[in-house]
């Protein structure tokens, strides 16, 4: 497991380095054109990049969680979710328990954040808690814990910042170019290097157009790869790929977009928060692999739950070709057997039904919004808003007066 993370990191780091090279190249040519100094351009590019990094490093998690309007919960607020996260923490060998957040949103989604595994947070939507059973939730949480454990959050925010810097730089450069040509061209006095000027301009324009596209494609490629990897790790942790597969199936069936998601936070979600029904996920411009494909791979894992089994399932679905997991990782680990499925009838007995689950989650959301709950003698649960002044409340159901 550990070698796998490392070797995949090497491959990802090469791609990140490619993005960085793109940024520097763009800075250099733009600097050469606008400032007459390539170094100056590189320095400006680096400064923009550094500022964005600083902001993201110190505030990234908080911004993301605040943007998604996530509410932190404690163990007693919702023991089942807390327990599942702890189970997956133990299975993955993660040392510190991640913080748990709930997003009040009927859409089904979840994401992980936190730069290093010791300061991680996992957020799930309330819709997810309502719709998934224990095994399915475990698969999803396993996927998120894998993102934390594989340091995907760090990697994806590094990439995201590089991408953002490239986009910003090319946007400003395009505008500056446009306005400077409007005002009759600058530096017409410096005659002589006319030919060289033209070449620099041409290279600059090409870079301005192509760099953001190339950077985006690299970004998407890394993101998709990390999704497969997180799926395979989740199957390894739970020993039960069917849990995640059936969760993904439910997630695919509901297409409500996550209200509070945005483009930069998209790779952190378990499925793309913006996908639309009927539109096949295009191959190159998507942060996530097509869900149907992820499900098929998980369901093809007949032999076992190890990374090698995921890899061969991946190859089977893709009809040969290269796997997603580096060979060194596959070689080291032993065989891992699948956990047998609990019979459907027995599970239904042992678990809460859909109705109870929905009620439980809605009670939780009231509680998180500081509503008090009073159970009336007739069995009705009264939700008392936090701003209520009066000391007595009449039950709408039976008419009894309850004290707040």
């Amino acid at each position, binding site marked *: 497991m550990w070698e796998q993370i490392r070797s995949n990191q090497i491959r990802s780091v090469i791609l990140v380095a490619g993005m960085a090279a793109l940024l520097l190249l763009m800075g250099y040519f733009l600097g050469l054109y606008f400032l007459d100094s390539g170094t100056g351009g590189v320095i400006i590019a680096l400064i923009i990049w550094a500022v964005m990094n600083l902001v993201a490093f110190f505030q990234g998690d908080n911004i993301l969680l605040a943007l998604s309007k996530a509410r932190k919960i404690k163990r007693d607020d919702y*023991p*089942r979710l807390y*327990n599942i996260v702890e189970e*997956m923490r*133990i*299975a993955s*060998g993660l040392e510190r328990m991640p913080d748990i957040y709930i997003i009040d949103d009927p859409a089904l989604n979840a994401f992980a954040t936190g730069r290093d595994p010791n300061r991680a947070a996992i957020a799930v939507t309330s819709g997810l808690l309502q719709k998934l059973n224990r095994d399915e939730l475990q698969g999803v949480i396993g996927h998120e814990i894998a993102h934390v454990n594989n340091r995907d959050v760090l990697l994806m925010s590094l990439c995201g910042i590089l991408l953002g810097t490239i986009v910003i730089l090319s946007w400003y450069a395009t505008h500056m170019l446009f306005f400077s040509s409007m005002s009759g061209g600058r530096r017409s006095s410096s005659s002589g290097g006319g030919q060289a000027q033209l070449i620099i301009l041409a290279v600059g324009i090409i870079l301005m157009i192509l760099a953001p596209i190339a950077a985006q494609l690299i970004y998407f490629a890394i993101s998709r790869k990390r999704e497969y990897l997180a799926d395979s790790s989740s199957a390894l942790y739970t020993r039960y790929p069917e849990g995640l597969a059936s969760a993904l199936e439910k997630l695919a069936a509901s297409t409500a977009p996550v209200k509070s998601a945005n483009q930069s936070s998209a790779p952190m979600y378990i499925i793309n928060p913006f996908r639309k029904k009927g539109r096949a996920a295009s191959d190159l411009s998507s942060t996530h692999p097509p869900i149907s494909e992820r499900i098929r791979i998980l369901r093809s894992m007949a032999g076992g739950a190890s990374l090698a089994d995921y890899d061969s399932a991946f190859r089977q679905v893709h009809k040969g070709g290269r796997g997603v997991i580096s060979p060194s990782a596959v070689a080291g680990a032993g065989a891992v057997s699948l956990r047998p499925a609990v019979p459907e009838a*027995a599970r239904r007995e042992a678990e809460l039904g859909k109705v109870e689950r929905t009620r439980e989650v809605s009670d939780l959301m009231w509680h998180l919004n500081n509503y008090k709950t009073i159970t009336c003698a007739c069995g009705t649960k009264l939700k008392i808003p936090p701003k209520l002044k009066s000391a007595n409340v009449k039950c709408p159901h039976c008419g009894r007066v309850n004290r707040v």
Partner: protein
Amino acid sequence: MNAVYIIIGIVVILLIMMASTYNGLVRLRNRVRNAWAQIDVQLKRRHDLIPNLVETAKGYMTHERGTFEAVTKARNLAQKAVGTGVGAQSKAEGELSSALARLLVVVENYPDLKANQNFLALQEELTSTENKIGFSRQYYNDSVLRYNNKTQMFPSNMMAGMMGFKASEFFEVTAAEEREAPKVSFS
């Protein structure tokens, strides 16, 4: 002169390799110890939960004295086995697991008990603790496999032999039938 440099270079490289092998062994051994501590925490949690569970369920399940006694007995034996080594402890805990599984199967016959909020909370805790024991065992065994491979494979086995790194024991589930979900018979 050149030969001296080459020899010094080789010695330095060897030393670096030995140091990193040693550190790798220590890291893996610590991981095994850490993983064992995780199992221990969960086993202790289970021992603490059982008296509560028995107390809550007893009032409802008046005809199941034998089942309760089996659980309590298995729990006490498991508690005694703490610290007696991985093999003995995993055997005692395995027996406790199957006694508990039998109890939870019988619970299905008592709908009143299943409506009790307190019991439901306990049941969630117990289910999750069982899962956590399973997952920590899984992680422990993974770590042991890795550590043992390192102590037995060339060339790190030489370092392991010199420095006294011994192979660790796996935490086995004792009997094959305990791995399967318990079956209910309606005879």
